[in-house]
């Protein structure tokens, strides 16, 4: 079991930091580049949501991330205590975005759930949002022909 927890300011620059961190965390495991890319995308979408939508880019507020790896089972938790999601069903609809003007695709949740094995969102207006993700990774380094 390997895990870490961190908190960082709601600045979009920190999303890129997380990406590097996730790559380094997964690199020694011998999983495919495609799976690493999928995990990076999941984290990027979740963290971007928390920064942009939940905490509205306020650097004084913090996003919390927890990543745990137990053998091939990866667990990711992304949490903010921001404004929360009013209509979760609508938010989970592909192509739906509350921010129309800034080229938001409304695909974040769809992408996250596609790349995850288990995906769960809990949200309360004015209290924040919590995303829980489980993904089963496939070590490939032992069975290369």
């Amino acid at each position, binding site marked *: 079991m390997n895990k870490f927890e961190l908190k960082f300011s709601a600045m979009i620059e920190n999303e*890129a930091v997380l990406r590097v961190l996730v790559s380094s965390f997964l690199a020694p495991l011998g999983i495919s*580049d495609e799976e690493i*890319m999928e995990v990076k995308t999941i984290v990027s*979408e979740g963290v971007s949501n928390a920064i942009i939508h939940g905490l509205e880019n306020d650097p004084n507020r913090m996003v919390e991330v927890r990543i745990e790896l137990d053998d091939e089972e990866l667990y990711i938790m992304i949490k903010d205590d921001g404004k929360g999601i009013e209509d979760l069903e609508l938010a989970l609809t592909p192509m739906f975005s509350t921010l129309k003007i800034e*080229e938001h695709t409304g*695909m974040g949740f769809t*992408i996250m759930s596609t790349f995850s094995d288990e995906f769960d969102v809990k949200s309360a207006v004015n209290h924040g949002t919590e995303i829980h993700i489980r993904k089963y990774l496939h070590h490939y380094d032992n069975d290369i022909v």
Partner: protein
Amino acid sequence: MYRMIDSEPKIYVVPNEFGGVEVKKIRDEIIKEIDEIKPNYIIFDMRDTTFIDSSGIGFLLGRYTQVQRYKGKVVLYGVNKPISKLLRLSGMYSIMQIVDREEEEVL
């Protein structure tokens, strides 16, 4: 099967990783340039791109909308397999011309 290009295409090289921060860095400049020169074709060269998220996809979609106003076209060139999966999921294949990395030699 590819339409003839009737004016000089504008080529933009997409960075290795294309998420929120990278979009923010280049977005305004590219929007301004497209508005000024109004190229009939824009090619986003994605041969070096290994990561994109919905911010990156949103940017590409935004440029598509921008050139649509004057009937311009957007081509995504040299897209790798994992990214192709993401673009397909986001419905990009039905609106843009996308050349996957494996079929690059077709052009």
